[in-house]
């Protein structure tokens, strides 16, 4: 995936962004006129670990254009740790609050901060007003939704057909794409929840990837040692959603 190589350097700036200084890729590819529709309502906010940005079955107050950090879209079936399975990942390439772009006001899925960072948020009504005024804005957000549908579909495939170590490797690659660094703050407990597998399975899969020299695992942290070989290890199970994203949302 090329997302990480295209990222701009970040420096702290004012709460209300200019198009050129947003780290969010969707905002960065908007036409200036479309960005101007959103800009007065955008507010830069921190994202704290485990913060729930979107709660299930609750009217969504804000959409979040992620600038740094990582968000998991989670099916929270029983409202407990062991009922949570991740269905999608969003980082600086996307936004959360998708139902708002599709004419809906809530979702049964939650959006949970898995790696802290910051985002530009916009109130639901302000986003919907801007969407109503600009077909081009609807197009950009709609194409992002399509790329996320492809991602979710590939995750269904991965969960049905891949062994645990390949699923873990795919997930590590997707996480690195979004955090843009080699050291990833991933505990085994978190991984077992996100991958929907038992805790001993995570330990086993981690040791297998470590034994191949692909990663190094320490308590609460996984370090990518050889991304090229991780890519080769995962094969065709990684890359399709990433390529679709680039095709659909190429920079102007």
């Amino acid at each position: 995936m090329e997302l990480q190589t295209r990222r701009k350097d970040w420096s702290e700036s004012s709460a209300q962004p200019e198009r050129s200084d947003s780290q969010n890729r969707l905002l960065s590819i908007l036409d200036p006129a479309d960005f101007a529709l959103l800009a007065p309502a955008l507010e830069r906010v921190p994202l704290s670990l485990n913060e729930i940005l979107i709660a299930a079955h609750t009217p969504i107050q804000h959409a979040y254009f992620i600038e740094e950090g990582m968000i998991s879209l989670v099916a929270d079936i029983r409202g407990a740790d062991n009922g949570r399975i991740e269905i999608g990942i969003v980082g600086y390439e996307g936004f959360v609050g998708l139902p708002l772009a599709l004419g809906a006001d809530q979702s049964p899925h939650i959006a949970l901060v898995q790696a802290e960072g910051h985002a530009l948020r916009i109130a639901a009504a302000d986003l919907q007003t801007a969407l109503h005024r600009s077909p081009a804005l609807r197009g950009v957000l709609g194409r992002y939704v399509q790329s996320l549908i492809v991602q979710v579909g590939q995750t269904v495939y991965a969960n049905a057909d891949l062994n645990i170590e390949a699923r873990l490797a795919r997930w590590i690659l997707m996480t690195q794409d979004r955090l843009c660094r080699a050291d990833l703050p991933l505990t085994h407990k978190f991984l077992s929840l996100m991958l929907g597998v038992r805790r001993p399975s995570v330990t086993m899969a981690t040791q297998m990837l470590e034994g191949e020299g692909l990663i190094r695992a320490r308590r609460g942290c996984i370090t990518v040692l050889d991304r090229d070989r991780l890519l080769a290890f995962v094969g065709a199970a990684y890359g399709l959603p990433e390529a679709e994203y680039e095709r659909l949302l190429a920079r102007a």
Partner: protein
Amino acid sequence: MPLFFFELDDGLRRFDDFEGSEHASAEEARQELVGALAMLAKDELPDGNIRDFRGVLRDHSRKVVFNATLSLRSGWVE
């Protein structure tokens, strides 16, 4: 919550647990172990006619408190 350690063995490879993990009870840890064994078997089979997948559960002092073996015994009829 009490700390437990899991070991898995698929007959070809052995996986130790150096970190351990907290679980609400020994019964929950047992379910984790047996569930992981079943998933390991799903990933590895149908490779081989005779396979044993073994799991060991140890408590916080590393004492073995539960053993599990999932076995396949299969063969063509002559």
